[in-house]
């Protein structure tokens, strides 16, 4: 018989300086038996049910249930035997929960004021799936989430490139998802990140309008879109087979080819409906960024004539309200996507702010608060945190930039209030004020200094050729300047409007027959082939011609005004002289005001 040698039992390393758990008696023996795999949690099948909570992926009527460990549930119940038993069975989770409480406590003591945060622990693939759907498990089905899942999140992992794992969803309470395989010190850091973000969600002005039950709202949209495709399939089934397919196509908004396929028995009604909805969503996704939900829509009457002084920035809202070709179900979908984009826009506008704020507090709480120290993994933790700051030659690392800004700000403020009796408190107040009123662009505009840019070794780069040659594959990107002012200018240009070009509706009757005129507020060239295809999509949603006034840079460095036109099938381009046209418009206005005001074309 093989006899296993009896090894002395080594207790698992205590987590930092935390108090040891008061578990005694039989519970202790169970705790000693728990498998410790380098500080990671046991695998999912080992958890008992009371700890697991359901995550529903998909929509309510067609959902797929996955399980997550709800950390907060370990808390509280001194009188609840079930929870007490869980605490005995899962000492590593209890430890993690203690860390969670420690972190929240430390954040509050340090002056942060976050929403409550629900922490969930999920397996890697579930986490990545959540990340690909912007953190909402119940989201309308679309292949592009799957593409995002693989190319953006899964592929780098398969290739051995490390990518960070935090999914934090705004709402009340804020939901934060952690990956079960991450080591404990990483989870601790991510918890502090989540708390700092929760603080931002509670206090930053740009998150004020957010629905506290955002995930419920998004899940209701998912159900609605699911309902839409079911209805569509039903209608298709109940229609008499004699009805000409062209008529069905105009009534329901389904392609004639698909109707034919359904009638020949090549595709089921459900498949046809699902595919139709999916393809329509594709079209809307390509224009989803043209949203401004903060101001109410302006009345249509204003746009019978070109109104360059008071344009409408909510292009998608304008299209939803006034398009003549959208079917009711299409209108619903456009509106849903518009609302979702609007709800997500604060996150895209506060990237540097949020990342910087999170890193800043992570560093601060971890180094200054001895209760948060994890001495057994000190170097690993430092290394793990530092990986966020890997510089990229062709991108800006928002974590590093944001962190540098807040760090520099803190130093400046400490210098400024050096003689103040309550210096630290004053500095903290100032910092909290900045996180309250800022977004990316204002942060860069007001608080980025020359010193920071030099510390970060930042530069501007440009392609060696301008114009179309600069968009071609293989065009060389060369460092053009290290000048602080120019770098700041470019950063502002790139982060303005959440990184999206500003495009607005100027006229809804450009040729006198319901043509839409859009104006690109020129800060930089649009990507040409993309702009053309997007314009085609927009023209299909609008139903009439769509014009886009923008500028294009030739090989010479002067941008020239051009007007792109699309009728929904193709795009043509013409140059024009804006000053001449404006003069003509004004002259026309004068004539109209003087004479008969009714002759305005049909308009819509």
């Amino acid at each position: 018989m093989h006899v296993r040698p009896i090894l002395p039992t080594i207790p698992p390393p205590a987590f930092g300086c935390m108090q040891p758990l008061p578990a005694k008696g039989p519970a202790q023996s169970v705790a000693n038996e728990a498998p410790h795999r380098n500080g990671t949690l046991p695998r999912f099948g080992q958890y008992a049910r009371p700890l697991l909570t359901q995550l529903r992926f998909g929509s309510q009527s067609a959902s797929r249930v996955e399980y997550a460990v709800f950390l907060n549930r370990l808390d509280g119940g001194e009188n609840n035997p079930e929870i007490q038993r869980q605490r005995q069975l899962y000492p590593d989770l209890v430890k993690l929960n203690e860390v969670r409480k420690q972190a929240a406590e430390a954040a509050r003591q340090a002056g942060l004021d976050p929403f409550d945060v629900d922490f969930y622990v999920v397996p890697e693939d579930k986490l990545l799936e959540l990340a690909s759907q912007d953190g909402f498990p119940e989201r309308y089905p679309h292949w592009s989430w799957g593409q995002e899942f693989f190319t953006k999140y899964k592929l780098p992992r398969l290739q051995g490139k490390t990518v960070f794992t935090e999914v934090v969803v705004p709402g009340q309470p804020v939901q934060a998802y952690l990956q079960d395989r991450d080591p404990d010190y990483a989870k601790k850091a991510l918890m502090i990140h989540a708390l700092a973000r929760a603080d931002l969600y509670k206090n930053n002005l740009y998150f004020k309008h957010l629905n506290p039950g955002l995930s419920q709202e998004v899940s209701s949209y998912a159900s609605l879109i699911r309902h839409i495709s079911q209805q569509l399939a039903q209608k298709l089934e109940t229609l008499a087979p004699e009805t000409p397919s062209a008529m069905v196509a105009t009534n329901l908004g389904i392609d004639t080819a698909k109707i034919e396929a359904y009638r020949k028995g090549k595709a089921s009604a459900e498949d046809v409906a699902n595919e139709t909805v999916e393809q329509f969503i594709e079209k809307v996704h390509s224009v989803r960024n043209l949203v401004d939900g903060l101001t109410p829509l302006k009345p249509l009457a204003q746009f019978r004539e070109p109104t360059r002084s008071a344009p409408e920035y909510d292009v998608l809202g304008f299209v939803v309200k006034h398009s003549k070709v959208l079917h009711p179900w299409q209108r619903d979908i456009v509106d849903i996507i518009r609302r979702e984009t609007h709800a997500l826009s604060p996150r895209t506008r506060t990237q540097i702010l949020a990342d910087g704020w999170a890193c800043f507090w992570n560093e601060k709480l971890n180094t200054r608060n001895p209760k948060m120290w994890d001495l057994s993994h000190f170097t690993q933790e430092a290394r793990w945190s530092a990986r966020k700051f890997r510089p990229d030659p062709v991108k800006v690392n928002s974590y590093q930039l944001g962190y540098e800004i807040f760090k520099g700000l803190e130093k400046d403020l400490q210098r400024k209030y050096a003689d103040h009796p309550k210096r630290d408190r004053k500095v903290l107040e100032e910092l909290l004020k900045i996180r309250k009123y800022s977004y990316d662009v204002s942060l860069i505009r007001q608080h980025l200094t020359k010193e920071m840019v030099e510390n970060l070794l930042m530069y501007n780069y440009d392609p060696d050729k301008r114009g179309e040659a600069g968009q071609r594959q293989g065009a060389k990107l060369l460092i053009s300047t290290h000048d602080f002012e120019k770098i700041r200018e470019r950063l502002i240009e790139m982060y303005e409007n959440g990184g999206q070009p500003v495009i607005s509706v100027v006229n809804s009757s450009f040729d006198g027959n319901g043509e839409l005129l859009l104006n690109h507020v020129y800060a930089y060239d649009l990507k040409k082939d993309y702009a053309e295809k997007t314009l085609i999509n927009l023209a299909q949603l609008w139903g009439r011609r769509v014009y886009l006034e923008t500028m294009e840079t030739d090989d010479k460095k002067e941008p020239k005004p051009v007007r792109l036109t699309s009728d929904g099938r193709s795009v043509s381009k013409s140059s024009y002289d804006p000053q001449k046209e404006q003069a003509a418009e004004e002259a026309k206005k004068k004539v109209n005001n003087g004479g008969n005001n009714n002759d305005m074309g049909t308009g819509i």
Partner: protein
Amino acid sequence: MIRLLPPKWTGQKSHATHQGRRQAEFNQPAPSILQKPLSKDTVRFSGGPDDLRNSNFQRWRDILTKQIREDLKQFRSPSQYEKTSDGSGVKSSMDYIDLPRFMRSSNEGGTGQGKGGKGDQVGQVGPDGQPQPANGDQGEEGDEEGEGDKAGQGSGDNSMEQWMPQVSRFEIARLIGDGLELPNFMPRGKSNIQKIEEVWDNLSRVGTPGNVNRRKSFEQAMRREMAMLGKDFNPLNIQWRKDDLRFFNTSEKPIPKESAVIFYIMDTSGSMTDKRKKMARDANFYLSTYIQARYGEINAELRGEAASKKDFGNGVQEEFIIHDNDAEIMQSDEKGSAEYKFYTTSKGGGTSFKPALQKVEELIKTKYPLDQWNVYVFHYTDGDPSGDDEESAAIIKSLIKQGLNLYGYIQTEGSENSVFHRKLNATFGPRDKFVRTMVMNDDSSEDCKRAVQAMLGTEETRKKL
């Protein structure tokens, strides 16, 4: 090899700690939070696309797979797709389907971080129009250390392959199979019919501890205890004995099998350009796919099972022969597989068919006797043989008399009036069952389709050509 089956109701390995836990859970009342019992799938840790129930991902992969299917159905060149590592299918790269939107153009430059002076190159515009870091200066290089537990995460090609869109070659055969058949198929597996295979379906009283069949052993122990103890039998306290153990064991089963061999002959004279070789390669892909899939199905049917992925090519051998004035049988070695060498070797020199056909004759005599093997020959050439066409035709004639299933002559880019083409037509007639000829004019998918149909088509299909 450990053959102990994991306990079915958790999917987890059992060892002492978990047993203890499970016992503790067992004694507790059912939790009120989740009444619904967990099924095996929901709790299991997912480790790949097959475990992954992300329908959005599956849908995206389906869209990509649809394109491959469409291409192969139209006989487009398969060389744009890679074979999977086990050769049972083709895979394509994961193309990013980008949705157009209004966005900043790359000719506007950007901001980056790093060392370097004015005018230094930091990157280039990538294929997707986005800036990419310059080669050798990777922004996100791998950093495995500090990642913690990375178990189960491979980074090789194989782990990537399971995520890629794939089409199996069985499916390809089904896609292109309309109007095709195995030419002149004869059941010839008489001597192979008693092929004996070992199957793990037996029980034994002796064996290694790894092969214990726990269920049977437990049943045996229970039976014995019941017989011995009668009323005192306690199902919760069963003492095992050594004679109770039952072990997994093999039994021998005769498996009937059909065998075939495909000879690919390629002319490697100077005039066989890369384009012509590609034509041969494309046509060969479809020909071999169809034949191997059909034999896989036939052999599975003889076993009385449904064909599975590993049945592809079951019972089919391939031989690759190149020739100019001399012929050579390609062998796999460290320089590459026989197939790889077959398509890449270039020799130059004259053209003579006789040595190649003699090699076929020789192999049939020594290795693949015609009473046991179905034999198919596909011969790719672009020109006329120098003078030995009479003798070559004679060899073919004698082989067919002995029972050769097919001699397919595929001429890549040459006139229909070439000497050997005329010779074959004159000797065997233009619509012979055993000798089929075909002239590919171009490397188009149309010609590839015609070539496959001319070689493997049913009589009706060949009439329509």
